[in-house]
């Protein structure tokens, strides 16, 4: 399933998300909050857990020097739809706080920050396609002009039965920007990803 480049292709599954649970259990970690997350957060949680499984590369940096920059096309629409369903029927009007709290895509940044105790700058952009050049530029600027020494950069989307998640870890120290390591082309090539089901974004 995992390639040398760190890619993970999901097997086709029709088990209502139980593959996520399987992957979570395979990690052998105890983090019950995982079960409460929406599907987008679970996806990014798993991607980052596998990315950092054997190498918590960011541990050498103070928590406020690790930034996060993510983007997707569909924001939190997957959960928004679920929330709308719970408030549409005026006769059966029971908004669910456990769902509502996930009606913003950047909540996933909060979940990753809590999990890894990070508190650097974080940003979430909504763009139809993965704008590698823009993302690379943004991360470059963060590493060049702020205190941040590393950046977790990702693209993650979940809508209906399609999902895709790619996460990169960029260190200013080991990827000198002046040598053009952090280029859009490299960002597109060097990644760790989960992709799955019928459609890939």
């Amino acid at each position, binding site marked *: 399933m995992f390639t040398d480049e760190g890619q993970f292709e999901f097997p086709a599954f029709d088990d209502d998300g139980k593959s996520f*649970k399987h992957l979570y259990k395979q990690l052998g970690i105890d983090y019950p909050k995982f079960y409460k997350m929406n599907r987008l957060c679970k996806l990014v949680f798993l991607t980052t857990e596998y990315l950092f499984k054997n190498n918590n590369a960011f541990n050498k940096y103070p928590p406020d020097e690790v930034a996060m920059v993510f983007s997707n096309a569909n924001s939190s629409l997957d959960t928004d739809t679920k929330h709308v369903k719970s408030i549409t029927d005026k006769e059966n009007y029971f908004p*669910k706080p*456990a769902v509502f709290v996930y009606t913003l895509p950047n909540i996933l940044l909060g979940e990753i920050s809590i999990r890894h105790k990070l508190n650097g700058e974080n940003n979430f952009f909504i763009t139809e396609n993965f704008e590698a050049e823009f993302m690379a530029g943004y991360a470059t600027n963060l590493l060049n002009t702020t205190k941040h020494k590393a950046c977790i950069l990702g693209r993650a989307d979940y809508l209906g039965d399609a999902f895709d998640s790619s996460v990169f870890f960029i260190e200013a120290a080991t990827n000198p920007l002046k040598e053009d390591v952090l280029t859009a082309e490299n960002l597109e090539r060097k990644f760790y990803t989960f992709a799955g089901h019928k459609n890939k974004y």
Partner: protein
Amino acid sequence: MEDLIRKLKEGIIEVLNLEEMEIGDIDTDAPLFNEGLGLDSIDALELIVMMEKEYGLKIDDPKKGKEIFYSVKTMAEFITKK
């Protein structure tokens, strides 16, 4: 009591949106908050609503809430006593 515990676990999975969790994943005696399921204040709201909606029980005293919602077992005991 067994049936009530099963029903409570089903209710918790439903109201807290624990999509991938099954009844067997919830320990009857384990703390629901912080440890165990790692629930928080938002989840407490959901559980309070569930108690009212499903069992017609209101929790007026927040201090008692802490005891009642300690675990699935303590929730079941509270319902049984009422």
